[in-house]
């Protein structure tokens, strides 16, 4: 029989702070995910909204949502032409229970060869890991919604409102939307952005700098995220080993082994340090990898608008030469220019605030991480000192 944990959360247990800056500053629209249920790796989020805006039917309400609903919301926003000049908050990644699932498998296989204590410890480990993944995914979904609600344009988005309010199952709507857009925009962006962005001749100093910075930075931060993940995974393995050591010791009466049991406590500290590092640093890097991508997408859209504008110029020249459809070509050119200017203007604003946001987020998380590391290391020190004293005095 395979062991499958059921994890449930509630508001009091884990109020997570987001990797981004506090986004719930505006009381007119406050969103959070106070509750979530995890069943067989499918997560059901409870999205809770409190608002003073008249566009909503009620001042406070909650709806159940799945991960796919979030993706639908993200996609509709991406595909909305008006938002081309904005950095679209990155979609939350799919809940990934692969790690704990593997462990669960190992637990099931190894059950016969383990002692009861070892099995219990591994089960405990497994539950903790499930909970950690769970917490993370809730946090990341919450941040997504909060970024939308704190943005002057997105918060007014019709689909956003539907997402928050619609008390029926969204899956029907989702299907229709998919058929309509077909993911066209999204696919285009993904395949061509690097080439187009780097290929375009840039006249604006600001955007030239941004382009170079973002291209380089995105590669490095993606790499850093992967390596941070590897490092924190190793750290967790070390913590797990302490767990196994103390597990192997529990079933013995020998005196000196009781001293070793302090490893149990040490393990918890190590584990917490690894998770905190994970949450603060790795999550930060992971989040900004996605955010950088969103910024790059903005550059791409602007670059495409620029390309369109250049093309419209060429078309106008051709029309003038031929003496045909000049008015139409002029109109087209004017519109392209307008679009491009609009994108450049809002793009500049967005990218500037993005810079500031990034620096603030890094600062906040680095400080919190460092303070936690110090706290845990000091805790370790006092625990170890205590154990050593006890042992020496015996």
């Amino acid at each position, binding site marked *: 029989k395979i062991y499958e944990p059921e994890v449930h959360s509630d508001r009091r247990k884990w109020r997570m702070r987001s990797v981004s800056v506090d986004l719930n500053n505006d009381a007119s629209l406050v969103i959070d995910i106070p509750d979530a249920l995890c069943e067989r790796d499918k997560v059901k989020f409870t999205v809770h909204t409190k608002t003073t805006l008249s566009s909503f039917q009620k001042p406070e309400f909650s709806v159940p949502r799945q991960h796919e609903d979030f993706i639908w919301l993200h996609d509709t926003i991406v595909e909305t032409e008006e938002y081309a000049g904005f950095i679209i908050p990155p979609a939350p990644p799919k809940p990934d229970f692969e790690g704990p699932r593997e462990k669960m498998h190992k637990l099931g296989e190894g059950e016969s060869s383990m002692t009861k204590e070892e099995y219990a410890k591994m089960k405990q480990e497994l539950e903790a890991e499930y909970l950690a993944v769970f917490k993370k995914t809730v946090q990341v979904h919450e941040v997504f919604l909060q970024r939308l609600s704190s943005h002057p344009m997105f918060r007014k988005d019709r689909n956003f409102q539907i997402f928050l309010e619609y008390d029926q199952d969204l899956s029907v709507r989702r299907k229709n939307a998919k058929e309509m857009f077909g993911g066209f925009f999204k696919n285009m962006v993904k395949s061509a952005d690097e080439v187009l962005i780097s290929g375009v001749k840039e006249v604006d100093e600001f955007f030239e*700098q941004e382009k170079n*910075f973002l291209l*380089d*930075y995105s590669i*490095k*931060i993606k*790499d*850093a995220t992967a*390596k*941070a993940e*590897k*490092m924190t*995974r*190793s*750290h967790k*393995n*070390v913590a*797990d*080993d*302490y767990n*196994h*050591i103390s597990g*192997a*010791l529990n*079933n*013995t009466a*020998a*005196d*000196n082994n009781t*001293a*070793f049991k*302090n490893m149990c406590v*040490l393990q918890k500290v190590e584990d917490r340090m690894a998770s905190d590092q994970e949450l603060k640093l790795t999550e930060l890097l992971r989040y900004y990898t996605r955010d950088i991508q969103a910024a790059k997408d903005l550059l791409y859209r602007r670059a495409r608008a620029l390309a369109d504008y250049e093309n419209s110029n060429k078309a106008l020249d051709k029309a003038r030469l031929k003496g045909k459809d000049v008015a139409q070509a002029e109109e087209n050119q004017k519109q392209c220019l307008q679009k491009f200017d609009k994108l450049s203007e809002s793009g500049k604003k967005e990218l500037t605030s993005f*810079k500031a946001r990034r*620096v603030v987020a*890094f*600062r906040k998380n*680095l*400080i919190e991480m*460092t*303070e936690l*590391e*110090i706290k845990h*290391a*000091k805790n*370790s*020190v006092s625990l*170890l*000192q205590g*154990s*050593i004293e006890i*042992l*020496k005095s*015996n």
Partner: protein
Amino acid sequence: MVISCNLGIVFIYFLQSKPITPTSAPDEGDIFSEEGSYIRSDVHHATNGLHSDEELDLFTGISLHRCTMTRNDIMVKCYLSHQHTSVQSLEATVELTLTNTTSQGRREIIGPTASACNTTHVPNSILKPSIVTKTMEELEEEESGDQFELNIAVTNPEKIGDGMNAYMSYKVSTQTTLPMFLNKTFSVRRRFSDFLGLYEKISAKHSLLGCIIPPPPQKSVVGMTKVKVGKEDSSSAEFVEKRRAALERYLQRVVAHPSLLQDPDVREFLERDELPRAVNTQALSGPGLLKMINRASDAVNKMTIKMNESDNWFESKLQEVENEEQLLRRLHAAVDSLVNHRKELCINTAVFSKIVAMLGSVEENSALSRALSQLAEVEDKMEQLHQQQAFSDFFILAELLADYVRLLGAVRCCFEQRMKVWQRLQEAQSTLQKKREAEAKLLWANKPEKLQQAKDDINEWESKVSQYERDFERVTCTVRKEVLRFEKEKARDFKQHIVKYLESLLHTQHRLVKCWEAFLPEAKAIA
């Protein structure tokens, strides 16, 4: 009569079941017939100045010491040994070791004795030789502490030769105040096969008595080949260090054993400049040895005759030992995994540190850029800390556990030894029985000429049976003593190592605090 210099060592070991009546100085022909031979010598005084004149009187004319003891109270071992020196003079050292089996632990007095032996009568109560160097309390304290009169270090591994015939030579340094050695500090060079040879020699002598012989470090073809071939990488350096430390621990365990310390082979190993090459060490190393031990225990388990134990002690103790061995194996596997994961963490941290540095260099905000490069440095320091911690994980914990898994195997051997002795006794008893039956038959058949032969046979086997009975009692006593000593030492060893390990963790955590505290202002400076 001067004994030639090539004489080996003789030790006389007796457990008296009946009191010996004191006599005056023994005649030349007087031999402790029960215990084996002795060697007599006139000793010229030693020139190293360690012994007082009184002692020298010990040896003129008297070759042996006799002591009275009461049954069950005191077991006395006397050793008479001859030291080989390049000069003609011989030095004889006598140590009197006392063990009181009825008290809690062992008390040992190591030191030359004089007046006690000048008279041939020694009181029943505790032997108190006058030139004993310490009082019993002092010695007990010393024994319970780490202080030992003998310190051994194995250092300076050096590769001798080239190619497949190359070998590592290690410097074995001894520092001691024990008078049985020529000098206070001295060193020799030994190679791995010498250590195995030592094991073979002492095992041959002492394991039959039921002593726990510390097993030598394991041979490793892979490890050694890399070294021979001359691979100058970190793994072969690690291998050499691992072996050096293992050899050191091995020797330390050997000399921590009171009987083994007295063994002249051990002394020769520590002192003699050139040792003859030990051959046939193949069978003794690593897997070979383990196989031998396991085969022995299998054989014992299959023994159909169950021992008739007067008390449960041996049976339950053996079970305890087997359980403990299993436990330690599991623990060792877990610690091994810890070592590997920590090494992985090391590598991953180093990699991460580099990428953070690169990220910092790309970052456009200058304060954040600086903070990121500081973070990279912190991670770099952490990598070093992890490296050191992995080292501690291995050398303090993993090796301790591995050593004790093998030591427990040696303990099992010693139980098996006792079983063998018992079996021999059983067989002798049944042979005696048969001889008696044969005699009875002859009596009945009235064949007087064969009767004498039968009577002789019976006498022979009677004395064998009584000797084997004594052997068995002696082995039983030794095994019991050895196990208690082993347990005490193990508890002490573990405690010591655990404290050391926790201290290493403490050190790491201290450094971590410092690293992060140094970084915090940098993080706060981001604007």
